[in-house]
């Protein structure tokens, strides 16, 4: 980050609130980093410099007037470009959406961040229409992993992760249907949160699969993640899936430790489908937490299949007219998958819906005996950009569809999950999923905070 300026969201907000630095100075420094680093990282597709400086001036003016600054006063951030930004077409990583009318208003989460004093620097890239685990995009190029520019960021929120991991911004917004926050968090060494389905409003965001889609935060620490998540909470009637529940602030909770929490490590499918170094990272996290119990979740492979079918069917129905009229303008990496979904018999989709209720009953039983389940987020660390296959469970498989093999099954129910970076002996991090009961994001973040404080998210040597 820039010399002399704080680099965490919490420190920036405190410095701006105390008058140690102005929001305008922080914003100008952040825009300078974007100008310097984005050509190398390719995270930002659109930089909203004028808007950012206007927002910063408004924060500074409010402080001069004596107003209480918001909890993210002066904190620069990036938004995955599926969030509406007033005055811009919502690209969602596509070429086709360039022809959409500019958004008439900001997405609700962008509005909430503005109300909290945060400064939007722009829209960041993503896999086309969020149907992606790699961070690559035929129209706008791949976001580069700041930890190793030859490797994938993961997707589909690859631009969000790259923007944060490169230090251009301390926090970002992303979305997670089948792993699109958790996978990039794992590959780029960040903390991410997939909140409970229905917790955060998706109003003003471009969907992929509305029965599974969630939106949420990235950060470099659990404190920043919790603060950002807390600002985002609250019902909004514009999203029919958003549940009217009181906000549950998590920042005051994260330091409560894990005493009394019943934590288990996911075995079976999650061990079979992860490489040894990813399992070593999982076991290190378990040892750090003093966890020895293992839970084998029944039918988890079917849960992954059901999530696949939901996503393929719903997303293809969403894009059916675009597939009819502009199929050639899709990214080749998404086009054939969307077309396959459009041809899917309804009975397959309905079987997947029926299985969802069955899997909920299975998980309900498991959570009678534990509060948290730990699982690897990805089977391996960030792969090289050009890698096409991978060996899992003794079988050589296509890489791309299997990057999310461990995130996709737990997406089906919409459970809250924190992604936590864990370094092993090598130079690249792994990600751990901290999975809780519905609506218990606070427990996810408490566990994540203990792992962070133990230094697991810091590269060794």
């Amino acid at each position, binding site marked *: 980050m820039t010399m002399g300026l704080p680099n965490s969201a919490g420190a920036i907000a405190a410095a701006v609130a105390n008058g140690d630095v102005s929001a305008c100075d922080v914003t100008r420094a952040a825009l300078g980093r974007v100008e310097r680093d984005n050509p190398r990282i390719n995270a930002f597709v659109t930089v909203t410099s004028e808007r950012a400086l206007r927002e910063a001036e408004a924060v500074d003016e409010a402080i001069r007037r004596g107003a209480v600054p918001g909890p993210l006063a002066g904190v620069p951030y990036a938004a995955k470009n599926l969030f509406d930004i007033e005055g811009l077409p919502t690209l969602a990583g596509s070429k086709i959406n360039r022809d959409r009318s500019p958004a008439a208003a900001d997405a609700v989460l962008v509005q909430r961040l503005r109300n909290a004093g945060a400064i939007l620097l722009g829209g960041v890239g993503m896999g086309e229409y969020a149907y992606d685990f790699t961070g690559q995009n035929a129209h706008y190029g791949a976001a580069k992993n700041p930890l190793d520019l030859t490797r994938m960021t993961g997707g589909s929120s690859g631009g969000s992760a790259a923007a944060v991991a490169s230090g251009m911004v301390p926090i970002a917004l992303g979305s997670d249907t089948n792993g699109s926050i958790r996978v990039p968090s794992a590959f780029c060494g960040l903390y991410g949160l997939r909140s409970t389905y229905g917790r955060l409003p998706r109003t003003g965001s471009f969907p992929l699969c509305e029965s599974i889609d969630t939106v949420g935060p990235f950060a470099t620490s659990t404190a920043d993640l919790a603060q950002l998540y807390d600002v985002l909470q609250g019902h909004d009637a514009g999203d029919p899936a958003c549940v009217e529940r009181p906000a549950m602030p998590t920042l005051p909770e994260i330091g409560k430790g894990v005493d009394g929490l019943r934590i288990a490590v996911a075995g079976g499918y999650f061990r079979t489908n992860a490489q040894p170094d990813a399992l070593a990272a999982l076991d290190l996290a378990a040892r750090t937490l003093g966890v020895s119990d293992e839970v084998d979740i029944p039918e988890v492979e079917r849960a992954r*299949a059901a999530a696949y079918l939901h996503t393929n069917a719903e997303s293809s129905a969403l894009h059916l007219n675009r597939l009819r009229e502009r199929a050639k303008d899709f990214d080749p990496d998404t086009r*054939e998958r969307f077309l396959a979904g*459009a041809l899917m018999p309804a*009975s397959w989709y*309905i079987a997947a819906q029926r299985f*969802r209720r*069955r899997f909920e009953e299975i998980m309900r039983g498991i959570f009678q005996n534990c509060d948290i389940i730990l699982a690897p987020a990805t089977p391996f660390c960030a792969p090289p950009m050009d890698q096409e296959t991978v060996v899992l469970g003794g079988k050589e498989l296509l890489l791309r569809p299997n990057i999310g093999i461990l995130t996709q099954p737990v997406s089906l129910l919409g459970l809250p999950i924190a992604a936590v970076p864990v370094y092993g002996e090598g130079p690249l991090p792994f990600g751990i999923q901290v999975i809780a009961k519905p609506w218990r994001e606070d427990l996810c973040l408490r566990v994540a905070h203990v792992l962070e404080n133990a230094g697991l998210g810091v590269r060794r040597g």
Partner: protein
Amino acid sequence: MEPGDSVDAYIDAAASRLGLSIEDAWKPRLATFVLLAQGMAKLVEESGALEGSDSASIFRLRDIP
């Protein structure tokens, strides 16, 4: 679809009914993804005992003021 059926024939017929134009160059990958979804569906259907579960998302009629 049953094993032995031509997936290409299924793609051609279904795409035609849906008004989708499929270029020949796209068909090999498209067939791969159709067969992948078929495999996923088979796995789900094999779980059995699904008939008592919700057959679709619950539709809730909202109040009309």
